[in-house]
């Protein structure tokens, strides 16, 4: 049995924070779409996987340097976002929520299949030009890939928060999320903002695909990180960027603590379901999440 020991706990916590920030990044893609269009994107994990494939493919097949393959992945995902909104999601505007949900589930399968078709079934690598030598963060040694991932996450989470809170386009997007009909009456072209939301989710997914792909390698399994999006957004709130950060941190920390302290008793695997137990508990106590907005009820 592992004794409680500060050094060990500190390692678990630091790891949890780093991983949690990276979860927050991909959860942000989900939140952007939910916030702007009310659609629940069950293909977020597949977006991340597909973006990883583009980056790894560009490097492996065409010998592109890291920064170029990352850029290609971002542009590819922006195009994919725009395209999907136009071809799949737009015709479903005004249909029942379940129609959109089913469409994104179908989309997930299509993305998984077509990635395998295009890039083959093997695992590809994304090599960040940062080396393998662990870097000391205080008393904890961390792989550089993880540090880069966390830094990218922080930068983009901050940028998107600013964008939503302060920019005129961000305010218009929130207005659309609040009421499409009233937004239209203000001269806001609602469909353009839907397309923008999907494109922005594409950017975030590309970043997620590159940093997660660099850490785990790129194959179909990469889509599984998308499953963690659900506990993250249920805990934090479906429509809150801050919520994505806090939810991400909670999930990252909980799964690391579970792996460190519970796995030795049960022989492993708690990491994979501990966040979901927390999610189910959260649904019972506070279904709108920590930062999710409640409907304003007035009499």
């Amino acid at each position, binding site marked *: 049995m592992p004794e409680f020991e500060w050094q060990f706990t500190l390692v678990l916590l630091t790891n949890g924070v780093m991983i949690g920030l990276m979860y927050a990044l991909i959860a942000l893609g989900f939140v952007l779409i939910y916030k702007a269009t009310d659609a629940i994107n069950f293909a977020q994990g597949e977006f991340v996987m597909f973006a990883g494939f583009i980056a790894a493919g560009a490097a492996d097949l065409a010998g592109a340097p890291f920064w170029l393959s990352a850029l290609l992945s971002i542009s590819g995902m922006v195009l994919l976002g725009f395209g999907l909104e136009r071809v799949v999601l737009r015709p479903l505007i005004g249909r029942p929520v379940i129609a959109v949900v089913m469409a994104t589930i179908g989309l997930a399968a299509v993305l998984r299949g077509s990635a395998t078709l295009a890039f083959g079934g093997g695992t590809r690598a994304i090599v960040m030009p940062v080396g393998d030598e662990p870097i000391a963060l205080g008393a904890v040694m961390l792989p550089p890939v993880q540090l880069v991932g966390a830094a990218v996450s922080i930068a983009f989470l901050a940028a998107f928060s600013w964008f939503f809170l302060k920019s005129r386009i961000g305010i218009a997007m929130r*207005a659309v999320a609040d009421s499409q009909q009233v937004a239209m009456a203000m*001269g806001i072209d609602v469909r353009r903002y839907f397309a923008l939301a999907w494109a922005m989710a594409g950017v975030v997914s590309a970043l997620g695909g590159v940093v997660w792909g660099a850490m785990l390698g790129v194959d179909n399994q990469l889509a599984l990180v998308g499953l963690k999006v659900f506990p993250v957004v249920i805990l934090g709130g479906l429509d809150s960027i801050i919520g994505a950060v806090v939810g991400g941190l909670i999930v990252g920390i909980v799964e690391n603590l579970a792996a460190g302290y519970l796995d030795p008793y049960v022989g492993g695997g708690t990491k994979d379901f501990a966040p979901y137990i927390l999610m189910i508990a959260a649904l019972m106590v506070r279904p709108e999440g920590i930062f999710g907005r409640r409907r304003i009820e007035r009499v």
Partner: protein
Amino acid sequence: MLALNNIEVVYDGVILVLKGVSLVAEEGRITTLLGANGAGKTTTLKAISGLLHSERGQVTKGIVELDGERLDRLPAPDVVRHGVTQVFEGRRVFENLTVEENLVAGAHTRSDFASVRDGIERVYDAFPVLRERRHNQSGYLSGGEQQMLVIGRALMSDPKVILLDEPSLGLAPLLVEEIFGIIRRLRDERNLTVLLVEQNAALALDIADHGYVMENGRIVLEGPAETLRQNSDIKEFYLGLNEVGTRKSYRDVKHYKRRKRWLS
């Protein structure tokens, strides 16, 4: 001048709701459109502002013109750019946005940031209480403040014409008076053209220059506000007074108002 000529509107491809509506809102005047619930007043406003599409409604006949330019068949954002903005009934603020963010959203069709700043200040001058509440989440404002906000937000697009749908609904008499006073000032000081839909005919005819009465998708009566005030049919059915000046359908009126409040 805003003019509707023989407008027909159909919902869901089959339900004929407006059966040839013609009306004129003169520049710098308040024109009121009266009628019982279901008469088609809101539909008329949406036919002007291009907002029928999202409700599977369609203008199937007729012309909407602003100073000689066709507005019918334009998508809603273009109608706003042409200078016509609708204020929905029921004080539809963007609940999760602050007062000031609501105003910024209202200025979406204006690109020049300095003029947006300027517009915000002008709205605050017209509605000082909004300045005090500028950073409050608008979903938690009082009903009167929300009504002021939606009018102020519509002004942010710098419209020539504003379409107001039942601004008095569910507000205390004193507040209604204040808001109607502001509408009058907007007409006098900014030469704003107002098309005012109202259930409260007495109030509306009091500030309006001209009036129309709608029934069942048709205009059934028209005239200067002064004339309509004297009209005995109007007195009886819309002002709720009979010949001797007592309330006739007071109960109906009250019942109706209560229903509306539940809905809003």
